[in-house]
């Protein structure tokens, strides 16, 4: 029985070896490729036989002119002749009935003589909407709750005699944060794909999201989903087996996979993007999540749930917050210098204005935190119950400012920084060409 269980679990562990449904295997031109001359044909090759719907394959330029002629199916391929294409960026939109009986749709981009734009910049795609900002905010909140509550338990309450009830609440809070992170990730990915595919909702449900999954945003979505599913399993096992030591790998993994949020932000067109900016973004988001999430956890769960731990928790969190704020400020300053080539961009560009709002909120939160660190902490030893109750309300206020910072960060991450005239990437030029 045990052997059968091991064999079954091993078989389930490698689903990537096979595809369960009709999949687009390759295209000519390939996804996101730059080609020297316009292709004579567009070819889509699937893993099973397909049929094309009339007029269901379109090749569109930056102003929406259609160049594809009627397509035909050839076994597992769909072939469409194409009128001569000039230099520029093009979007291919297609629909087909797959052999497994579903109508599937999709989109991809290629460039003739110029680099192809990201699929999120396909013709007709409008860029991030208010709904995407809200979803990304929820994504940030979920991440902050997950990482913050885990970090608070693992770092600030290390060695303390934590009541069992509080331990359970902390695990439930971090589990809730992970679930929100997973759900917000799926919703954000769907919204981005819906924008790129530009399909009615009914057709979108059968839309092929593979090109989106191949983008930086899509890869971040896949990595974060898998990572946080693992974190959820660890949290559950920690709760089931009463093993607080499992929270340490859960915290480490959640901090590691928080990098997906910065990786999925902006897009590949960011001027000055490099591995250094990616690392700085990750440090910025991870440190801010531990800071804001930890603060909210301290107020929401510990302050009134375990009053005997208030002093030690506040003192430990205050020390930790000093380090976290240094990391947030250091990484944030570096990223602002890289992404805003001119100081005037702060008030002349949309990205700069959002950054100004965020900076203002961060300064407000920092002043509040500084007051707690330098004024409240020394007075804590001789504080009475009334003082501690008022401090709880003050900490709740600081947490709310932190949540507002996350909202500004969500809008900022979805926005595109201004281009440097001297450093404008060819992709940026292509995207500009492609916009309707």
């Amino acid at each position, binding site marked *: *029985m045990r052997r*059968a*269980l091991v064999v*079954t*679990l091993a*078989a*389930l*562990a490698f*689903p*990537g*070896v*096979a*595809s*369960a*449904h*009709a*999949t*687009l295997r390759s295209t000519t031109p390939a996804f996101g490729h730059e080609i020297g001359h316009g292709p004579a044909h567009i070819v889509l090759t699937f*893993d*099973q*036989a*397909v*049929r094309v719907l009339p007029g269901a394959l379109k090749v569109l330029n930056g102003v929406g002119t259609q160049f594809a002629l009627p397509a035909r199916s050839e076994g*597992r391929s769909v072939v469409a002749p194409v009128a001569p294409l000039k230099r520029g960026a093009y979007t291919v939109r297609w629909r087909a*009935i*797959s*052999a*497994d*009986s*579903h*109508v*599937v749709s999709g989109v991809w981009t290629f460039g003739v003589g110029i680099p192809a734009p990201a699929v999120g910049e396909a013709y007709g795609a409008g860029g991030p909407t208010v709904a995407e900002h809200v979803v990304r905010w929820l994504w940030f909140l979920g991440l902050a709750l997950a990482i913050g509550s885990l970090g608070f338990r693992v770092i600030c309450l290390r060695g303390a005699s934590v009541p069992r009830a509080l331990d359970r609440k902390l695990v439930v809070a971090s589990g809730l944060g992970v679930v929100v992170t997973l759900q917000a990730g*799926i919703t954000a990915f*769907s919204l981005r*794909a819906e924008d790129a595919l530009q399909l009615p909702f009914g057709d*979108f*449900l*059968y*839309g*092929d*999201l*593979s090109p*989106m*999954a191949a983008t930086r945003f*899509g890869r971040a*979505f*896949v990595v974060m*989903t*898998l990572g946080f*599913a*693992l974190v*959820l*399993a660890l949290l*559950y096992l920690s*709760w*089931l087996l009463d093993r607080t030591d499992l929270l340490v790998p859960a915290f480490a993994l959640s901090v590691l996979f928080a990098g997906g949020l910065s990786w999925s932000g902006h897009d590949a067109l960011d001027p000055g993007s490099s591995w250094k900016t990616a690392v700085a973004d990750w440090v910025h988001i991870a440190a801010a999540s531990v800071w804001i999430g930890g603060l909210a956890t301290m107020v929401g769960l510990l302050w009134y749930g375990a009053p005997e731990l208030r002093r030690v928790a506040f003192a430990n969190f205050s020390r930790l917050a000093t380090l976290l704020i240094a990391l947030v400020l250091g990484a944030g300053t570096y990223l602002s210098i890289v992404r805003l080539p001119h100081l005037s961009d702060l008030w002349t560009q949309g990205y700069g204005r959002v950054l100004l709002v965020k900076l203002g909120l961060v300064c407000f939160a920092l002043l509040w935190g500084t007051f707690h660190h330098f004024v409240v902490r020394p007075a804590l030893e001789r504080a009475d119950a009334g003082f501690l109750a008022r401090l709880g309300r003050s900490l709740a206020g600081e947490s709310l400012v932190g949540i507002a910072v996350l909202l500004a960060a969500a809008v900022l991450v979805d926005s595109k920084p201004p281009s440097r005239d001297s450093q404008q990437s060819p992709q940026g030029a292509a995207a500009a060409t492609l916009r309707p």
Partner: protein
Amino acid sequence: MLPHAEMVHWAFAAGILLVGLCLLCEAIVGQEVWRMRPWRKYLWPGLAFGMGVLLWPVMAFFTNSSIHMYAHGSWAEVLMLAGGAELGLVHGRLKSRAWRLTWPLAFAVTGLAFIVHEQNPWFFARSAFLHHLLGWTFLLGALVPLALVWRPRSATLQACMALTIVAVSVMLFADRDVAAVFGHLSPLAGPAHR
């Protein structure tokens, strides 16, 4: 050579079959005998929870249609929830039998996801037929775990639950082939390619 498109369904069908067989054994010999070895009580709930975790890679990697992504995601969540609740109950971390309501919920969500994500009518092809059949089996089968919440010692209900799960695994083993059902195959289903 095994057809590629069946591998994931077959792997999970094997897992579901194992769950069903464990439940059937428990129903036949009784809970006391089944739990004489302490690890056995964790077997099928642990397997269900593990399958829920392993459905996340399926959700994340198979993005060739939105609806399948959502279906796989919902199955991952309800399997983790129901398997996790059952583990909590057998381990003693959870006390209220109301947690067993997670099983009818899982059945209902799974059934709805099967029916909603099937675009074609029953007799389009074998795959469509089995998708509908799976969906309705789960939806109607949800009544069995629902009844078990109030009659947990009923051997008849336990056997019904086990047989429902075994039947589902058999359907999943037979699913997804481009083949005729009762002699009918829609021309839109495309030629058989295996």
